């Protein structure tokens, strides 16, 4: 309708337009045949004498003009005209659906407040604004295109819900603009985060205004910010669950953590935590393995999603390891270390003289910890340990270990002292989070780094284990291996789950919130990425059924007292974003029909009044 041009060629419009002369002719006919008796024509004798003959035939009647107006309006209505176009603003409405929106205050969640605020903003927009809705986690729009339809917007708003993940509002806004394929006239962000400070350069006239509607207020919380397992590999030690808790309240509070299995509480610890303080709590658990529920209880606790976690321990099950390298010496060296541990079953994969481009791991490497000296192989495996090989120019160097105590691996490195090792050439460039630093010729370089996230764990060791002058730091290796094996205990929300093996075909996935979906696999391994909810994910294919547990552990989301802003105000649109001048044209037909009805009503009233006043 909006693109239809106004035209008088429409047949009905032409017909009604042609009826206007007919109306004039009918009135002239009626006026010539109508006889009105007056008391006397004497007063008009002089008027008659001086009047032109032509004028005496013209009708003097408001009724005629009203009827002519009705016909003209009808003809106009048949042309289906449009109101002069007015510009409709496109507003990108980004709703924060991160986990912190589930925090409760005064019996209402931040999400309830956010929806209320968003709806109020939509209602204030009137007809001059159309809205595109985007949820921040996962970044998706429930609407196919921007709309001003209140019913559609209400349904879309109701379809959004917060998930157990953290989000990035700047990313969501950028993706939302990408979905729009145009720069919106305004961006409205409804979040529990504070509004970002606007830089002076953001006041440029070309920047689209960003309106931040903040809900809620700083709230106290206590959360589980880390869960890990320590299972014995090669030494006689107890199985432990390490739970790191943190107090996000502005006052000290007691935090109680209990470990239970099948409803039976196995252990319970309570700590008084200062504001902002975190503390790891270790719980000894039987080595039989199984699932353990971790539950946190605190006095000032407003977010429930971070109070619970589930960990899976294998007990005495063997850790499968694959040592892959094109160097037999490397395989032999690492194999000697692995042989020292009875619970590790390992298999070598000698790659021979294969070129780097053709190197591929075996199919079952996804369920093994891959130890390799080839970066390309380490990238292929979800769990990998990468040793760096030194070049021939390197020399053995005495290194003083500096341990980062925040990392779990560091618990096993305190006994290390000055050790000679052969450093890799790219030790200083190793990526990831440094765990162990080394003082080498007065320079601080990372020796051991870890990379976690997106479903992967990798440890990068910046020394060559097969070097002839290196003293092998076996303890570092084994502890890192144990940390790598902890990946199997549980995953966190947002990380993909790699589950298998299945037969090639469809695998049905049931999420913790009851949603079911189907994913197809050809290799037999399913990579499931929609882990937005903490809980148990069930993968089934025929009689094969596999369960995986996903926990929500995110210190940033749990910190409701000081929320950082993830929104970045952009001063200028990206090059591919163009301003689309959206103009919405409204059909005039409805208004014209109303006007016609009013004209006809006025004509009827006038006629009835004159009829009533006419003398009998």
């Amino acid at each position, binding site marked *: 309708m909006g693109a239809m041009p106004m035209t008088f060629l429409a047949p009905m419009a032409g017909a009604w337009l042609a009826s206007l002369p007919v109306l004039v002719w009918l009135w002239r006919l009626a*006026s010539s045949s109508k*006889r*009105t008796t007056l008391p*006397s*024509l004497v007063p*008009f004798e002089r008027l008659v004498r001086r009047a032109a003959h032509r*004028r005496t*035939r013209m009708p*003097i*009647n408001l009724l005629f003009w009203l009827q002519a107006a009705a016909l003209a309006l009808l003809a106009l209505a048949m042309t289906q005209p449009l109101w002069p176009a007015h510009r409709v603003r496109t507003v990108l409405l980004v709703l924060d659906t991160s986990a912190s929106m589930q925090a409760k205050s005064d019996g209402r969640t931040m999400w309830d407040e956010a929806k209320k605020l968003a709806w109020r903003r939509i209602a204030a927009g009137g007809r001059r604004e159309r809205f595109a809705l985007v949820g921040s986690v996962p970044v998706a729009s429930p609407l196919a295109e921007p709309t001003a339809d209140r019913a559609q917007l209400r349904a879309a708003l109701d379809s959004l819900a917060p998930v157990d993940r953290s989000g990035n509002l700047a990313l969501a806004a950028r993706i939302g603009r990408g979905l729009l394929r145009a720069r919106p006239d305004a961006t409205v962000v409804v979040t529990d985060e504070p509004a970002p400070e606007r830089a002076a350069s953001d006041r440029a006239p070309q920047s689209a205004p960003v309106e931040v509607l903040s809900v809620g207020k700083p709230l106290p919380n206590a959360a589980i910010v880390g869960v890990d397992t320590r299972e014995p590999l090669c030494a006689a030690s107890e199985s432990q669950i390490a739970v790191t808790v943190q107090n996000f309240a502005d006052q000290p509070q007691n935090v109680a953590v209990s470990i239970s299995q099948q409803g039976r509480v196995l252990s319970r610890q309570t700590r008084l935590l200062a504001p902002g303080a975190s503390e790891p709590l270790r719980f000894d658990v039987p080595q039989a393995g199984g699932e353990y529920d971790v539950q946190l209880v605190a006095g000032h606790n407003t977010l429930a999603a971070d109070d619970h976690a589930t960990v899976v321990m294998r007990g005495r099950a063997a850790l499968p390891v694959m040592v892959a390298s094109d160097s037999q010496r490397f395989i032999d060296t690492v194999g000697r270390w692995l042989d020292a541990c009875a619970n590790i079953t390992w298999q070598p994969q000698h790659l021979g003289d294969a070129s780097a481009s053709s190197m591929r791991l075996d199919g079952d490497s996804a369920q093994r910890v891959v130890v390799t000296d080839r970066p390309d192989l380490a990238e292929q495996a979800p769990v990998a340990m990468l040793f760096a090989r030194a070049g021939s120019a390197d020399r053995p160097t005495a290194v003083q270990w500096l341990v980062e105590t925040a990392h779990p691996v560091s618990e096993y490195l305190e006994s290390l002292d000055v050790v000679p090792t052969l450093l890799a050439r790219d030790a200083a460039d190793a990526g990831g989070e440094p765990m162990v630093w080394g003082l080498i010729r007065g320079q601080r370089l990372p020796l051991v780094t870890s990379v976690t996230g997106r479903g992967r764990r990798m440890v990068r060791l910046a020394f060559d284990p097969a070097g002839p002058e290196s003293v092998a730091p076996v303890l570092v290796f084994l502890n890192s291996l144990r940390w790598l094996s902890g990946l199997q205990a549980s995953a966190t929300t947002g990380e993909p789950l790699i589950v298998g093996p299945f037969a090639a075909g469809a695998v049905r996935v049931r999420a913790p919130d009851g949603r079911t979906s189907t994913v197809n696999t050809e290799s037999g391994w399913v990579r499931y990425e929609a882990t937005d909810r903490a809980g148990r994910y069930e993968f089934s294919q025929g009689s094969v059924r596999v369960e995986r547990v996903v926990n929500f552990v995110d210190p940033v989301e749990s910190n409701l007292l000081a929320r950082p802003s993830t929104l970045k105000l952009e001063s200028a649109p990206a090059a591919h974003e163009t301003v689309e001048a959206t103009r919405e044209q409204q059909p005039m037909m409805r208004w014209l029909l109303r006007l016609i009805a009013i004209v006809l009503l006025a004509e009827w009233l006038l006629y009835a009044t004159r009829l009533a006043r006419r003398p009998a």
Partner: protein
Amino acid sequence: MPTLDAVQPALLRRLEAFRLTVRNIHWSNRLGGRFVIKRRGSSIEFADYMPYTPGDDIRAIDWNLYARLDRLYVRTYHEEVELAVEIIIDATESMRLPSPKKFARACELAACMTHLSLAAGHHARIGWIAPGAMAPSPWLVRRGEFGRVEKMMAAVKAGGSVAFDQWMTRAVATRRMRGGQAIVLSDWMIRPAELFAGLNQLIRRRVEVKVIQIISPEELDPARLVQGGVVVDSETGATHELGYRPEELRDAVREHNESVARFCKRNGMAFVQHRLNEPLDELLFRSLPAHGFIEPLH
């Protein structure tokens, strides 16, 4: 047939506080009334002495004056006459249009004037300007005769056409109009020449003429009646295709009415225009005194 519904006893009682304004009394009125005229008459009121001429009544000779002056003088006395009021109602076809209320209102006004005349001791007679030889009412003298007025009114039906000047010529001759007053009620939708000629007949016979124009609001704004087409003169049957702007029609009627009013003023006639949407008592107690038709008794 008009009824006198608006003429209620209460209205008549209020009307008795007024009397007809009389400007001139002439000898031609009926004798024996209470209006004294400057004419030697037979009343007991002494007027003057006049030299005796043969033929005078010798009983009127003042012998005392003869003894003193040695000349014959006769005593003369004032004449006393009654006021004859002719109430003339236009009963032509135009008085039925655009509404019969126009003729009815004329009859009500005529009844009120009749009552006023009888209450003041005048002689009143009602006549109708109508085609044919429609006789006027007999002279009404006593107040008790007012009851006959309603019957007379009910018997009259407006209609037909009459040339006003010719009717008046015939009426003054046959009804021996001379002196007194004539109150003429009409819409005056006649040619000015006819109007002037007719009323001049009365003036020449020393009749004090009072003119009341009864007109409807629609006549003053003819566009409310004429919606184009052919218009027909109700009296003459003449037709014309009339199509003018409303203001042109209004101006034409206004000019005609002004010519009537001008003529009346120029000839010393009381004139009032009464619109049908104006209440009757408003006319009787405000407009008529203001235009010199009637005056309060005290």
